[in-house]
């Protein structure tokens, strides 16, 4: 199987949820969660997806793994439209795309032993008992868990270990893409770094592509290859991760970065540009640029026209802001 450069390609993807009301449960409005996303996940890279809560990060992940269907637009997986993937092909698809979640305790079955949680994945593929055990032991070793872990239950492990069980479960089927939805947010600082480093080394060994969903800009800047910044269902900026903290141009990205707590108390006196207000409701989207109500640099055009995501000529940088185009 030859693989295209982009593992996932999204074109004008829209996801609206209906709001039902009245006696007859008629549609009275809609929650516009994803509003036209153009985005690609490059093979072999770690792509970061950042934004505030409610901006549609997790909905996007659900669309990618076919937990939800998009309202309009096309999603291509290895150049094949996602809605055409059915039947036996769908089973294969689920092998290739795996996901890990924020809270490992709630995503691991408390009544199953680790050997079953992890082994179930390959058992479904019909491998024999011997092969299954061998595979489980190998993957547990790779995520740096002890061999005697196989006979224990999830509650017997620490948070970091549980997240590594979840990683083992996702990687035992050797997927092409791993979607990690806030994989380290529930962990302590020292464990966050350790888990991310482990993911990075596994990525190399398994030739993985990773989509890392996070709200922590610093982690994303350190750990990813490229970063997409989302705001109210649109991608407002996409750029290489090493340029995120120094060369971002969108006022929203800048505001996110200036909101990161300082690391040195002597910088406290410096005035920071804290953006006012909160994310508008996706039920009642403002016209024009979704960010204009909070933007410190808005001008007339921003209230009326939605800026498109455009590539800056000669650079690996996409931006949706009139100010910079």
């Amino acid at each position, binding site marked *: 199987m030859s693989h295209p450069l982009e593992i996932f390609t999204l074109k004008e993807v829209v996801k609206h949820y209906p709001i039902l009301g009245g006696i007859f449960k008629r549609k009275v409005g809609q929650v516009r969660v994803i509003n036209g996303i153009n985005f690609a996940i490059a093979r072999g890279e770690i792509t970061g997806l950042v934004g*505030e*809560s409610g901006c549609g990060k997790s909905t996007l992940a659900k669309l990618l793994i076919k937990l939800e269907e998009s309202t309009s637009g096309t999603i291509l997986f290895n150049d094949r439209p996602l809605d055409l993937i059915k039947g036996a092909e769908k089973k294969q698809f689920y092998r290739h795309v795996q996901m890990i979640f924020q809270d490992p305790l709630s995503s691991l079955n408390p009544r199953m032993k680790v050997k079953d949680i992890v082994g179930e994945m390959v058992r479904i593929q019909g491998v024999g008992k011997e092969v299954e055990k061998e595979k489980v032991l190998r993957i547990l070793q790779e995520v740096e868990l002890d061999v005697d872990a196989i006979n224990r239950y999830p509650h017997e492990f620490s*948070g970091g270990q549980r997240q590594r069980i979840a990683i083992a479960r996702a990687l035992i089927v050797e997927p092409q893409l791993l979607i990690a939805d806030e994989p380290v947010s529930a962990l*302590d*600082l*020292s464990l*966050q*770094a350790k888990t*991310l*480093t482990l993911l990075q080394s596994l990525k190399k060994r398994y030739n993985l592509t990773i989509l890392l969903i996070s*709200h922590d*800009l*610093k*982690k994303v*800047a*350190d*750990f990813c290859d490229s970063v997409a910044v989302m705001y109210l269902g649109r991608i407002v900026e996409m750029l290489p991760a090493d340029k995120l903290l120094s060369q971002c141009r969108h006022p929203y990205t800048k*505001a*996110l970065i*200036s*909101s*990161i*707590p*300082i*690391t*040195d*108390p*002597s*910088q*406290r006196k410096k005035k*920071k540009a*804290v*953006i*006012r207000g*909160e994310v508008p409701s996706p039920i009642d989207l403002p016209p024009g640029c979704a960010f204009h109500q909070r933007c410190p640099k808005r001008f007339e055009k921003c209230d009326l026209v939605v800026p498109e995501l455009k590539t800056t000529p000669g650079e690996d940088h996409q931006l949706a802001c009139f100010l910079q185009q």
Partner: protein
Amino acid sequence: MMHSQETKPILEVNDLCVVFKTEAGRATILDKVSFKLQKNKTLGIVGESGSGKTITALSVLNLIPSPPLDSMSGEIRFQGENLLTFTKSQLRKVRGNRIAYIFQEPMTALNPVLTIGDQIVEMIRAHNSISKKEARDKAVHLLTEVGITSPIQRLKNYPHEISGGMRQRAMIAIALSCDPDILIADEPTTALDVTIQAQVLDLFKYLIESRGMSIIFVTHDLGVIAEIADDILVLQAGKTIEYDSIDKVFHDPQHPYTQKLLSLIKGGVA
């Protein structure tokens, strides 16, 4: 150890030990933790999960449930009096009134079936004998102070109807309602987005200046501490690792554990 200007602290904790009873036997959760909180100052308590930072905050007002609590020893002096010797009714007069709490997750701390207004009024009337109308006016005033727009409408809202940032502001308004001397905030910004976190931290800074309160700020995020605290207490496994002024700890950390924590926020993924 610290404070060149040694004034009388508003809260002084000496050799606080907390022991839990578990199935596996007794466990020392806090081991001789001591600190001082000066008036108009902010003390940051930092540590990883399980280090005892929340237990330290809870033990100040004897809020740890028993079981698992087995025994507490040491001294917690609030304006000279030892809170550990207080009776239940004496403690009740201090709780909420003189020392108030803010918790991490406002959605679980607020009552979902009462409006924001009811909950603020309840708190005011529990500690002051004033009319409902007066209490309501005070509630509007408090919501304005914590930066909630259109406070009169918000009084009628239930907690689920407002955003996370606004819920946390409402929690702060409830905590402020009796003009406490000390505010204990346990991870008050952890559940919030960075932009909202920055707004709430600005609110805390404003309150420290305008009200002259003392704050105990419990968090695992050293970045938040760097923004707001004057002194810092680093805990690990119930023991004090480091306790000094913020500048000293950030620029010249003595303990290897503190050094490692600081390197994690400064260097990112190591």
